[in-house]
């Protein structure tokens, strides 16, 4: 048991996994517990960047870069814009909802235990993962041969969503 634990700790990948997962969970917990809204966004940025580290551990380098660009970059800035556009100085006078929050905490923890038991029960046969150097190139080839129609559909959806967002947020002059 102790020997297994020592082997586990001596493996560099496991150490990195522990480090990044700690950062992820700490960021998420701070997101829930901090008082100021901007601090919450910074905590969430920590979570996003550590998740990018986990993606590198999982040999998904392209997705790690996408995570840093889109989540840690664009999404965080967008949320800070959202905070700047709205006012947040009335947090203290809000009524607390102890019953609601207690039931919610109970339900969340119960839900987590159900998932945890399911994960422990399930058997995952070890499969050979052929590790590839050119992750980005293979994703590009796959995306533009097998998944080209979903790719184009997603581009149309993004255009529609962003034009819609501009129209919704626009000031109604007339």
């Amino acid at each position: 048991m102790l020997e297994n634990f020592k082997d586990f700790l001596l493996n560099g990948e496991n150490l990195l996994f522990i480090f990044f997962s700690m950062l992820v969970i700490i960021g998420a917990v701070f997101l829930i517990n901090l008082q100021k809204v901007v601090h919450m966004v910074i905590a969430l940025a920590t979570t996003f960047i550590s998740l990018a580290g986990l993606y590198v551990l999982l040999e998904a380098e392209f997705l790690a870069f996408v995570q840093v660009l889109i989540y840690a970059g664009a999404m965080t800035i967008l949320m800070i814009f959202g905070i700047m556009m709205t006012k947040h100085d009335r947090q203290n006078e809000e009524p607390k909802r102890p019953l609601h929050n207690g039931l919610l905490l109970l339900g969340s923890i119960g839900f987590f235990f159900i998932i945890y038991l399911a994960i422990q029960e399930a058997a995952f046969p070890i499969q050979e993962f052929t590790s590839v150097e050119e992750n980005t190139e293979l994703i590009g080839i796959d995306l533009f041969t097998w998944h080209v129609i979903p790719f184009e559909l997603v581009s149309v959806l993004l255009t529609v969503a962003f034009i819609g967002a501009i129209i919704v947020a626009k000031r109604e002059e007339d």
Partner: protein
Amino acid sequence: MISSYLTLAAVLFVIGLYGALSKKNAVIVLLCIELMLNAVNLNLIAFAKFGINPSLKGQIFSLFNITIAAAEAAVGIAILIALYRNKATANVTEMNSLKK
């Protein structure tokens, strides 16, 4: 190894769920929804490496997921700003015009 990744994703998802249902600030609710989507992405990528049939499909699926999440966040913030202009509140408990 996969079970630790799945457990981490479950922890993230549950924290996001708790935040999305308990916070009153609409921006924070959006952030917590992003957290839940990130947990799902982590699951997909973990299965792309350690799953029954490891391949790049999981990574491609999570790429689409990230795109949809970006669109969702943009539309969410736009709705928030429009609502703030009309009702001057970012509190989700006061967004109840349809209930009256």
